[in-house]
């Protein structure tokens, strides 16, 4: 925790709103005349729905309507998902996990809706559950879906393949190969095979999922806390068979997302509830229900990796089995990204990776801060460390020997490494005191997590409006979820316009007015949308200069913009009176538009070159208590490369915040199932990191290697901090106690079992 950074003495507008309670979030919003919804959820992991009796619920005073799967099934396109569509608005013929929404009640208040939901009688015929990947892939296992998933699927490039429904209960698979792995293994001095497990996790955002829908004059308007309003606009339009301009999404500040508010969740259902109730409807989920909506994919990853006699990595084969849960959600993306990234930041002569997303009767897996990157980094950086130790090599030196050099392509056809990996490693080992003596029972570990950033073929548009008074309104669809997007984007616009940051505001997001983007995912806001913002601001600035040049009878090149004046030689001309004189009336706005599109390139493995790389340099010092099995993280150091830090404090905050989530996951977080039931899907039972759990020393640092593709060489870092933490801690545990933990979390039970096994 270092001291204050320059430029932080004045609160940003964003922070000011949030510390005064003025900031408005979805749960604070009231629409006149709105009714309230509650969901009835399945108590069975897998059951046929033979009938739903809503009579008793409908007879209750204050109940407006009950929506069931048959209402949903009558819609033009009643399923949704990310590129693969299989999730119904409500369970229709079958419920597929404990918590699957089966019916939705609309009533005058939440308490009435809740009571009415309890009065609904569902006739279930229990079916065999598929609680894990093994059960789902076993020969003769019941098949969860009668038909293959709809939807466009994913196009991938050279070296990659993407298949949907390759086997019963397998939603999709992604394969990524280059070189001849078999030949490389045969020629390797050593080949190691190790398996790793990653647990099922909840996002744990504090602001519950809340949606309000209202139908008016043939269109539907939604207020929603989400990360991708334009994606949702498309989903709702498709589900209801509406043109895009008949769907309007408002997205206020979001109280934490981490991917859990990405993509379609219950938005179409709330629209359907409002349509049937003929009134605006608000559906506010509880914290428990958020956990039952989407999770991070648990997985097992088996890695076979070779090394030559000089300690150079040769080839890797990866088998990644992701537990996708009951519905597709973002599983296709997670499969692709985990399979693609499994090599980590190293030079491999051959790669042969297979990632499969397997359907089970559990809460669906979705995006969670890194689309499979955390899972891959956990397995890869654990095995790299194990290999170094087995070879008697220093884990730092082994990594440096094999790390990609700056500019070296990650894979054939893809972009080059745009961070100095060795410099980051040095920064971590220095802060960690890598070579200092250690007390007994203590150990140190490091890791370099890695993911690609910015999205694949991503795009964004932006509008910058500059008033005659020299104030700017920036309009883009990056959702403020705590990452500091509003501040950073306003700063980029202010830099380009040459005006003070206090003169720039970020407009509320409304799909009727906001310029679209692909969503607040993949650490892309300041890079992808940032480029569009800078272009829009530059265009607005050009208009200002052209106007001034016209008014003064000179060329724009003869003028210098300073503050809100133009200067020609030693004559200053304030712009506002000049603009008012010319336009009269209420004044004028200079409206600039900008756009960015990362092109598709079929010769790149993912059909587009990766925009930038997100390494996460992590280091941990731990104490392992041999009597209790408790792991105490004494020191945690984590850094990332922002290219250029537009907001240094915000960058540090992103890195530390992500690292704390990963620390929590490494030490104790896990959504646990007993039989068919998630037993800790509630805030009291789902343990998350609190202040007393913090390591004594917890240090985030931001590097600026100056080679990002965004404005002024910046690049995104929002997901970085998670990637290497679990592996760094596992590596430190081995250093401390000579035991290797290969499954998360590192509970005292697992530590004691490993110590016993070691003897």
């Amino acid at each position, binding site marked *: 925790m270092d001291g204050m950074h320059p430029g932080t003495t004045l609160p940003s507008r964003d922070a000011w709103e949030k510390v005064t309670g003025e900031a408005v979030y979805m749960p604070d919003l009231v629409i006149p005349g709105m009714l309230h919804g509650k969901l009835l959820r399945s108590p069975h992991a897998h059951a046929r729905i033979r009938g739903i009796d809503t009579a008793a619920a409908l007879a209750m005073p204050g109940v407006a309507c009950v929506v069931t799967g048959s209402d949903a099934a009558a819609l033009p396109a009643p399923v949704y998902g990310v590129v693969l569509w299989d999730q119904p608005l409500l369970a229709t013929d079958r419920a597929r996990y404990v918590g699957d929404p089966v019916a939705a009640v609309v009533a005058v208040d939440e308490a009435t809706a809740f009571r009415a939901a309890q009065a609904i009688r569902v006739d279930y015929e229990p079916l065999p559950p598929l609680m894990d990947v093994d059960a789902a892939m076993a020969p003769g296992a019941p098949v969860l879906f009668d038909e293959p998933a709809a939807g466009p699927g994913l196009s991938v490039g050279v070296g990659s393949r993407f298949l949907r429904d390759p086997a019963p209960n397998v939603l999709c698979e992604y394969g990524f190969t280059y070189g001849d792995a078999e030949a490389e293994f045969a020629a390797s001095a050593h080949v190691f095979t190790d398996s790793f497990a990653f647990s099922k996790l909840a996002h744990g955002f504090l602001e519950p999922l809340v949606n309000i829908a209202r139908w008016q004059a043939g269109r539907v308007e939604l207020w929603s806390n989400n990360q991708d309003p334009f994606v949702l606009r498309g989903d709702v339009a498709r589900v209801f068979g509406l043109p895009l301009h008949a769907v309007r999404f408002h997205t206020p500040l979001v109280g934490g997302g981490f991917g859990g508010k990405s993509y379609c969740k219950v938005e179409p259902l709330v629209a359907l509830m409002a349509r049937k109730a003929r009134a605006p409807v608000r559906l506010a989920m509880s914290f428990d229900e958020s956990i039952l909506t989407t999770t991070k994919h648990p997985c097992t990853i088996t890695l076979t990796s070779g090394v030559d006699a000089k300690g150079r990595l040769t080839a890797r084969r990866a088998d990644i089995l992701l537990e996708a849960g009951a519905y597709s959600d973002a599983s296709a993306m997670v499969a692709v990204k985990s399979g693609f990234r499994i090599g980590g930041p190293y030079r491999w002569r051959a790669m042969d990776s297979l990632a499969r997303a397997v359907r089970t009767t559990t809460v669906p897996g979705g995006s969670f801060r890194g689309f499979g990157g955390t899972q891959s980094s956990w397995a890869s950086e654990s095995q790299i460390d194990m290999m170094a130790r087995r070879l008697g090599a220093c884990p730092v030196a082994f990594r440096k020997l094999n790390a990609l050099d700056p500019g070296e392509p990650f894979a054939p056809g893809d972009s080059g490494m745009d961070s100095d990996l060795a410099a980051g490693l040095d920064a971590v080992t220095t802060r960690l005191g890598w070579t200092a003596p250690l007390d007994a029972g203590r150990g140190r570990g490091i890791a370099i997590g890695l993911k690609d950033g910015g999205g694949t073929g991503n795009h964004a548009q932006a509008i910058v409006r500059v008033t005659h008074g020299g104030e700017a309104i920036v309009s883009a669809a990056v959702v403020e979820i705590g990452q500091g997007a509003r501040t950073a984007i306003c700063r980029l616009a202010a830099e380009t316009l040459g005006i003070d940051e206090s003169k720039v505001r970020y407009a509320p997001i409304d799909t009727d007015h906001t310029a679209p983007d692909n969503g607040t995912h993949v650490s892309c806001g300041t890079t992808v949308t940032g480029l569009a913002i800078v272009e829009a601001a530059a265009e607005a600035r050009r208009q200002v200069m052209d106007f001034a040049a016209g008014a003064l009878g000179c060329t724009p090149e003869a003028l210098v913009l300073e503050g809100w004046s133009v200067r020609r030689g030693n004559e200053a001309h304030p712009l506002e009176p000049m603009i008012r004189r010319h336009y009269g009336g209420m004044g004028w706005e200079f409206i600039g538009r900008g756009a960015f599109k990362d092109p598709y390139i079929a010769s790149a493995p993912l059909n587009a070159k990766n925009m930038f790389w997100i390494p996460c340099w992590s280091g941990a010092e731990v104490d392992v208590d041999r009597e209790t099995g408790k792991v105490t993280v004494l020191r945690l150091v984590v850094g990332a490369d922002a290219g250029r830090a537009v907001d240094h404090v915000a960058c540090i*905050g992103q890195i530390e915040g992500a690292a704390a989530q990963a620390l929590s996951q490494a030490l104790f977080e896990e959504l646990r199932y007993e039989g068919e039931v998630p037993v800790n899907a509630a*805030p009291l039972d789902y343990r998350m990191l*609190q*202040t007393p759990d913090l390591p004594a020393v917890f240090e985030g640092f931001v590097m600026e290697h100056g080679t990002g593709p965004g404005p002024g060489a910046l690049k995104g870092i929002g997901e970085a901090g998670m990637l290497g933490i679990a592996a760094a801690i596992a590596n430190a545990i081995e250093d401390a106690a000579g035991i290797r933990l290969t499954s998360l979390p590192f509970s005292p039970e697992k530590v004691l079992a490993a110590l016993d096994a070691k003897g």
Partner: protein
Amino acid sequence: MQITLTVNGLARTLEIAPQAVLADVLRDGLGLTGCKIGCDQAVCGACTVLANGLPLTGCSTFAFAVNGATITTIEGLAEESLHPVQQAFATHGAVQCGYCSAGMILSTVALLARNPDPDEPTIRAWLGGNLCRCTGYARIIEAVQAAAAAMRVAA
């Protein structure tokens, strides 16, 4: 039933249901939506408000149980300018999504009222009842220390 509260300096007489919790009365009855409801089970601390200077979780406190109390919510903290704790949170990176901020800030105000110079273990122990999923807490602890220092100088 009827209760009286002094909320952010204003005397209020309120007609409430016996089962009404303080957070709902503040949010729905008085429009003080700065009191956030996160977990709704007294775990996350987002709904923390001060009753007679002491922090309590509004989501799980019956409104009748605080009849007659002086309540401070985040909306009542700033006067001419930001309260030093607000100022420190806003300028030390202690705020990301902001959903926990009101509760964190009010908990901190209560801590500094009883201990103007808390050491780091004391701060960590005190804030254990306030969850933040965004920041990783380090900047929050730094902000608490900065606010304490600023308030000691001003006192």
